C-alpha cells in the first residue's frame, strides 16, 4: 500500500486560558490510511481538527504538510494546498441549491475573479466537476433543491460533497456519520472506503462499530493528550485505553 506521509504535527499545543485542550500532540497522516481519532467528550479531538484545518491557531508546535511548515497558514491557504475538512455541525450554504453549494466549491479551485463577463452557472469545467461529485455522493436527485430543505442525512452527504469538490489530499472528517440513519451510514462508509486509496483521512467519529470496521490506525486522546496510537486490534485490547475511555467497567468493544 502507498503510505506516503502527507501531514504531521510536531508537539502541537493549544490552550484555552488555563485549559490545555491539546498538549504536545504528535500525529501523522499517511495516504491510504484511515486514521481514526477517538476519545471521550472534551478529549480535544475537535480542537485537533481545528488546529489542522487552521480554524484556530496553535499556541505552540508545528503543523507540517508535505514537508512544509504550514502552522501559520490561514484556513483558505490550507484548503488550496490540499487539506479539506468537514464539520461536525453541518456547515453548508442553506439558501443555495445543492448544485450551487458544490459549484462554489468547484469554483474555489479555479476562482476566476476577474472574469466578470463569465456566467458561473454555465462554465463547463465547473459543471463537469459538480456533476461528478453529485453522482459520487448520491445527491443527483436533489441537485436542484435548496440545501436547507434537505433531510439531515442528505445535508451530511452534502457536507462531504462540498469538501470532496475541493479535491483535497488530506481529509479531516469531524463526525461524518453523526445523526445518520443505518442505511445512510453504510453508504457513507462505502464512500469513505472508496476515497481511502488516494487520500489521507483523519476520522473523528463516535460510532465505534464504524470506527473499528474502517480504520487502519487509531489514536486515542484523553484530556488533550495522546494516550496511544496503534492498530485497532491493539487499541481494543489495551487495558490503559479501556480505563481511560470507559472507566474500566466494560470492555471497549468485543
Amino acid at each position, binding site marked *: 500500500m502507498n503510505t506516503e506521509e502527507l501531514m504531521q504535527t510536531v508537539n502541537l499545543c493549544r490552550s484555552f486560558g488555563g485549559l490545555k485542550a491539546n498538549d504536545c500532540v504528535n500525529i501523522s497522516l499517511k495516504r491510504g490510511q484511515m486514521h481514526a481519532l477517538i476519545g471521550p467528550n472534551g478529549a480535544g479531538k475537535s480542537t485537533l481538527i481545528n488546529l489542522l*484545518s487552521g*480554524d484556530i491557531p496553535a499556541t505552540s508546535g508545528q503543523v507540517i504538510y508535505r514537508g512544509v511548515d504550514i502552522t501559520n497558514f*490561514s*484556513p*483558505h491557504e490550507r*484548503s*488550496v494546498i490540499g487539506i*479539506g*475538512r468537514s464539520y461536525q455541525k453541518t*456547515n*453548508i*450554504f*442553506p*439558501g*443555495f441549491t445543492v448544485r*450551487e453549494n458544490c*459549484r*462554489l*466549491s468547484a*469554483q*474555489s*479551485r479555479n*476562482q*476566476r*475573479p*476577474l*472574469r*466578470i*463577463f*463569465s*456566467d*458561473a*452557472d454555465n*462554465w463547463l469545467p465547473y459543471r463537469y466537476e459538480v456533476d461528478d461529485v453529485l453522482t459520487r455522493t448520491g445527491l443527483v436527485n436533489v441537485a436542484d433543491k435548496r440545501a436547507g430543505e434537505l433531510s439531515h442525512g442528505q445535508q451530511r452527504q452534502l457536507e462531504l460533497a*462540498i*469538501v470532496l*469538490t*475541493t479535491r483535497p489530499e488530506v481529509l479531516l472528517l469531524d463526525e461524518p456519520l453523526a445523526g445518520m440513519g443505518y442505511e445512510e451510514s453504510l453508504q457513507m462508509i462505502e464512500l469513505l472506503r472508496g476515497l481511502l486509496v488516494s487520500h489521507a483521512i483523519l476520522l473523528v467519529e463516535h460510532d465505534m462499530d464504524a470506527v473499528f470496521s474502517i480504520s487502519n490506525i487509531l489514536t486515542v486522546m484523553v484530556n488533550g493528550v495522546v494516550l496511544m496510537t496503534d492498530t485497532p486490534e491493539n487499541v481494543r485490547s489495551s487495558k490503559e485505553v479501556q480505563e481511560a475511555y470507559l472507566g474500566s467497567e466494560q470492555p471497549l468493544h468485543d
Partner: protein
Amino acid sequence: MIAAISLTARNVTIALFFILLAAFPQLGQDFYTEMVIRVMIMSIFAISLDLLLGYTGLVSFGHAGWFGMGAYVFALLGTKYQLTSNLWLTLPAAMLVTAFFSFLVGLFVLRTRGMFFIMVTLAFAQIFYFLFHDLKSLGGSSDGMNLRGKPTTAIGDWIPFELTSTNTFYYFVMLLMVGLLLFMSLLLRSPFGRALQGIRENEHRMESIGFPVFRYKLAAFTISGAFAGMAGYLFAILNSSVNPEMLSWHQSADGLLMLILGGMGQLWGGVIGAFTFILLQEVLSTFTKQWHLWMGVAIILIVLFLPGGMISIVERIKNIWKRRFT
C-alpha cells in the same frame, strides 16, 4: 411555460420602464425632470450599497462617506483649486479617489464583523464628515461650497454634449444608471459575484473551502465605494453645490432605507427603493410639515407587510398567478 411567460413579462416591464424613463423629460416639466434625476442618482447610490448589504452581507452604515467624497472631489478640482472641470477627468478622478479611500478604510473595517462593522463604518464616515466640515483646505464649512459650473465635456475641440441642459444631464445620469444595472447583472452571475453571495450565505465555509474571503470583501467594498462616489459626483452637479451633510449619517441611513423599501439583494431593489423613498418624501411633504412622521409610518408598514421590500410584490403576484392557473 410559466417561467417563459414571467420572463417575457419581466422583460416587457423593464423595457416599458426604460421607455417611460427616456420619454419623461420630453414633458418639459423641469421641476419633475430634476426630481427624477435625483431618483436615478439615489438609485446608483442604493445599488452600490446593495453590493455590500444585499450581496456580500456587509451592513455598512458609512456609505455616505463615499457619496460625499465623490462630490467633494469635483468641488475641489473644479471650484476650489480650479484645476479642471472636465467631465472625462473629474468623474474618473472622483471614482478613483473614493475607490482608493474605501480600499484603505476597508483594510481596517473588514477585520470586524456584525455590530462592530456597522459602528466602525459609521465612525470612518464621521471622520470624513468632520474633515470636510472643518478643514479649510478641503473647503471646510458647514455651508459647503457653491460650484462654479457644470463639468465641461470637451475632448480636444470636440464637445459631444452639454451638461448645462437639464435634459442632457438627465440622459447622462440615466445612461450611467443603466450601465451600472448592466454591470451589476453581469457581475452577480460571474464567479466573483457568486463568491460574494457565498460569503453572505456562509462566510466561514467560504474561507474553509479555499476562498480568500478578506480579499473578496475588500474588492466589493472598493467597487461599492467607487460607485457611491460616482453617485455623489452626479449629485453635486445636480445641485451645483456640495456640503458636509452629504457625508452625514442621515445620508447613509437614507441608502439603507431605500434598500429596505425596495428589496435587498435584488438587482432592481435599489431603483424601486429610490423611487419609493423620494416619491413618498415629495408626496408627503406637500400634504404636511410633519412628513417625517408619516414617512416613518410608511416604512413600518412596508417592513411589516412586505418584508422583502416593494420588489417582493412581483413574487407574490407570480405565486397567486401560479395557484390560480396551474
